[in-house]
């Protein structure tokens, strides 16, 4: 890492191999960072841009979990539900979440609702598929034992099906978290009024390499931080599962 920073310094500031118009020097990066943190850029400070984007990802993500996981569990549980829903999924699944952006803007405009819709699409399909797979891979005897003991249905869902499907569901969530960030940044690049992607967009139009790099680093840090948080939640939720906790 230190070598990398030294190399960066060497190539930009000392030798000027990479011109200032193409890639910022560490000094320019630092100046841009100070500017956006203090005075603000593209209408707000870095903190409020980052906060806005993170809130959208978390909200879209929660909506996707809230709708996708129950649907996936239901499809896993009932063959009828699977047959009913599967063709629609086959149809919708190959469409990348990013391709929903123009439609989302048409329907909901440039505000937050359109962003939540595309994040929802990015996270919904993996939630459904992994919850579905999670239920399908439950050992049959476990279900039969529960049925034999006369477990009421809601307790069965709560105490057997959901916990057993949880490791798979988390796998799906980890996959979709990155997709959610990608989609949000793309949506904000296409059209937004605030957010990290909007910073990138404005910096691109201003041809301001220092600020572009600040935006990119912010996207990376936020992606890393939310992945870490999700990993933390996973370890807590799966504390009983030694294999997954390791």
């Amino acid at each position, binding site marked *: 890492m230190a070598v990398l920073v030294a190399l960066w310094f060497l190539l930009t500031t000392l030798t000027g191999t990479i011109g200032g118009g193409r890639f910022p020097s560490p000094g320019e990066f630092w100046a841009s960072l100070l500017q956006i943190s203090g005075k603000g850029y593209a209408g707000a400070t870095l903190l409020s841009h980052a906060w806005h984007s993170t809130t959208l990802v978390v909200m879209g993500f929660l909506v996707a979990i809230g709708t996708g996981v129950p649907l996936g569990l239901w499809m896993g549980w*009932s063959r009828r539900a699977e047959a009913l*829903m599967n063709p629609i999924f086959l149809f919708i699944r190959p469409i990348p979440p990013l*391709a929903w952006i123009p439609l989302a803007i*048409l329907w909901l405009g440039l505000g937050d609702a359109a962003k939540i819709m595309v994040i929802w699409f990015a996270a919904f399909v993996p939630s459904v598929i992994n919850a579905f797979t999670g239920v399908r891979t439950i050992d049959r005897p476990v279900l039969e034992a529960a049925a034999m003991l006369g477990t009421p249905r809601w307790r069965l869902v709560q105490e057997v099906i959901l916990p057993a499907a949880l490791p798979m569901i988390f796998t799906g969530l980890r996959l979709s978290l*990155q997709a959610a960030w990608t989609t949000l940044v*793309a949506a904000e*690049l296409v059209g937004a009024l605030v957010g990290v992607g909007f910073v990138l967009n404005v910096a*691109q139009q201003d041809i301001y390499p220092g600020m572009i790099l600040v935006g990119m680093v912010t996207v990376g840090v936020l992606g890393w931080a939310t992945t870490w948080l999700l990993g933390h939640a996973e370890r807590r939720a799966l504390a009983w599962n030694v294999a997954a906790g390791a």
Partner: protein
Amino acid sequence: MNGARLTIGQGVAWSFLGIALFLGLWTSLSVSGLVPRQFLPTPMETAARFLSLFTSPFAGATLPVHLASSFRRYAYGVLLAAAIGVPLGLLMGWFRLLDDIVSPIFDGLRFIAPIAWVPFAALWFGTGIGGPVMIIFAGAFPPCLINAYRGARFVEPRFIEAARMLGTSDLRMIREILLPSAVPSIIAGLRVAAGLGWQSLVGAELIVAAAGVGFMMVQAQASVQTTTVMSGMIAIGLVGMLIDVLLRQGEAWLRRRRGLEA
């Protein structure tokens, strides 16, 4: 028990019911005017528009021409990612020193969404073919590298030891041990890369492009032509599906040829 299997007939019947419900709901939402027709055209209107796009141009070209220009960028980006990512990954798996140098850089870059490269891509390579290719590259590169790396890293150590003992040259070792045992992992990585590359292409074209399906969709969005936007989505979905099917076939063919039954 509720999880009981359905007969084939029942399965087909429920599937048809599902499609019918989906299309029925969609049609009734738009016909009833609950959602303005302009924003939610009926399935029939969308299908008609999809077909008409094959002959009547929109945003400067017909749908097949847009698709062709998208596909050209896509092929360049993915091939470039494979051509650099796979050898680099193999070398990193083989030479520990290179691994120590590249891994920290790579780990740092990994969390930056490919789409976030858009401003630099536009700045460095413009919006013609270079910019989008770079973004596709950014999307497709990581899986190429990671899978080649894993493939090379987890070669059965006994093979290497045996070869060393027999005095095999480095070059032969790479050709006859490293490559063959890494191939399945590399192929799996390429398939993931192809999928992610296609996604990145769509993103790239929505933001920086002057042609292609994504560009067509953005233009259609600006002029509120919902049917054209939806046609673009259908085209993207179909091509993405086609790429996936072809690669799966290729993977299965390779496995059979190498006598590795999947």
